[in-house]
């Protein structure tokens, strides 16, 4: 088996009373795209910052190639954020922006050549046309490609992307996603991408991990997980994707979950349709739903959901 590039072990990150990440295990393999989806405020960005080494774990570990992750890994770990405009210095040319990562790592090779290669790979061809332009002289989609070129120039092994296409035009979105997938297939890069957009996961991800209130509550290969979700939260999430209109919508009610007050038992239980409908009662697990925390999903899990009902049904059937 190939070695994991990143291993997250029983990670907890607290901000005061808020348990933003509350027990996460995760492995990212080289050459894979892993999509991290989940509700706003569920801890996705916090988890990504910890992998970058920018946020310190309250407890648990983040290992990058077996060593504790810290900001020194930066040339090997690069970031792409949602808003390309905010990420680019308006007074620098495209070529200076892309070269920045090389200068930080005191690159000894041919800088101009490395920059041109990165721009071409990011689909900005011919690179000479873009080298001397400033960010305001190129389109929004081209700006995001400059960000990707800047992230790729140091030939990182891991790319962390937080909503990389949310701010882009529908028509440009496909091109950027295609580019990312292509880089993964041709260079063995690993990508961990945070998104609200399940269509993006369908488009490029090998695996999907679903977060809810600081935990990964379901993980699996993209097709399996999106075609037949198991956890009630994932099911509800998929039912409200606008294009799955045949399905009956399960709009979750109740207060927005608060990491300062994580419910006892299964953290999803106050909003869970399975418990609310009496199904948990029938399965004989209602007490557990309310009082016993389902086991944390292990990093090695290929397909798993942290839910008593899923377990009960698997045992019965």
């Amino acid at each position: 088996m190939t070695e994991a590039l990143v291993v997250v072990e029983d990670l907890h990150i607290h901000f005061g009373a808020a348990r933003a990440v509350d027990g996460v295990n995760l492995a990212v393999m080289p050459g894979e795209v892993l999509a991290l989806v989940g509700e706003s405020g569920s801890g996705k960005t916090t988890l990504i910052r910890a992998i970058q080494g920018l946020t310190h774990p309250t407890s648990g570990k983040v290992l990058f190639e077996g060593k504790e992750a810290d900001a020194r890994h930066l040339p090997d770990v690069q970031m792409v954020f949602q808003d390309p405009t905010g990420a680019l210095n308006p007074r620098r040319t495209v070529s200076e922006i892309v070269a920045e990562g090389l200068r930080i790592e005191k690159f000894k090779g041919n800088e101009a050549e490395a920059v041109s290669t990165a721009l071409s790979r990011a689909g900005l061809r011919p690179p000479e046309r873009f080298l001397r332009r400033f960010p305001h002289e190129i389109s929004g989609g081209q700006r995001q490609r400059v960000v990707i070129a800047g992230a790729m120039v140091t030939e990182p092994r891991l790319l962390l992307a937080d909503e990389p296409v949310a701010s882009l035009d529908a028509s440009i979105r496909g091109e950027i996603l295609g580019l990312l997938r292509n880089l993964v297939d041709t260079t063995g890069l690993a990508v961990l991408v945070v998104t609200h957009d399940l269509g993006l996961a369908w488009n490029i991800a090998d695996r999907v991990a679903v977060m809810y209130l600081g935990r990964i509550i379901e993980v699996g290969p993209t097709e399996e997980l999106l075609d037949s979700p198991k956890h009630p939260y994932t099911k509800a999430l998929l039912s409200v994707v606008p294009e799955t209109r045949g399905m009956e919508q399960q709009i979750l009610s109740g207060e927005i979950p608060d990491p300062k007050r994580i419910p006892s038992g299964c953290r999803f239980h106050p909003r869970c349709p399975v418990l609310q409908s009496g199904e948990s009662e029938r399965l004989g697990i209602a007490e557990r739903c309310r009082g016993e925390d389902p086991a944390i999903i292990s990093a090695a899990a290929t397909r798993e959901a942290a839910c008593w009902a899923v377990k009960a049904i698997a045992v019965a059937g």
Partner: protein
Amino acid sequence: MTALLSVRDLTVTYRTSQGEVPAVRGVSFELEPGGSLGLAGESGCGKSTMANAILRLLPAGITTTGEVLLGEEDVLTMKPGRLRAVRWTGAAIVFQGALHALNPVQRVIDQITEPIILHKTEPDKKAAEKRAVDLLGQVGIPANRAEDYPHQLSGGQRQRVLIAMALACDPDLLIADEPTTALDLMVQAQVLAVLEKLRAERQLSMIFITHDLSVLTYVCDRLAVMYAGRIVERGPSDQVFERPTHPYTRALAAAFPTIGDRESRMNPSGLKGDPPDPAALPAGCPFHPRCPDAIDRCRDAEPPLLPSGPAQEAACILARP
């Protein structure tokens, strides 16, 4: 049936240091009472400009021509006093990116009561407050949150306050510009369900703007797709989404894959080239430089919006029945 809103040959031209920017170039459509029109199109194609022009909310110095008939009256030539009244009672707008538009030091209930008192649509302050609480209830915000300040609410809750506010004076038409784009899926679904309910219960007409076609198909009966300041395709929403006849609509529909569709798995679909610059549009069909189907004739003249199927129209010379 007489139309509630009838927009005729609307044009909007911005003036910049680089010259004139024709952002809306001749748009016509009608909306019936209780009807809902979805407006799609990529960033910069003129959707917000048009929405603001309908209520004459664009800053001075911008040239607007054409007619915007709300009932019998033309909004574009209305007296200022009448216009102020129409803006709350006739038609109201939820602005794009307005989550920060709420006054941070005023309780949400007071922000909703204000226009009701100003326009005297309720007899007194007490009745206005009761109405505000009712409206908040209708958008799913419980009465005990009415006294909250905006920062005490989540993004989705604030978005719903903005919708409640737009409905304060019981308008006949609601224009919602990207009201769910910044929200996560579950909250987006909550907001869409609220709008759907209001439409069913109060015959509210709606213009709903976003670049996500699947959201529009979900909410609206009819759909119009804009490109470079014009409508390039329109028709019943299911039909436009499932059988688009304009190549641009096809690209837009493919950009948001259907989960489960094997063809789009590991195969994201995009559109080559850059969005058009409204200050320098290409000759002929403005879409031709990016169009996968373009032929020589596409460079000759800009195609008019003509029937492309039953009840469907497209501005493309290849999309004729």
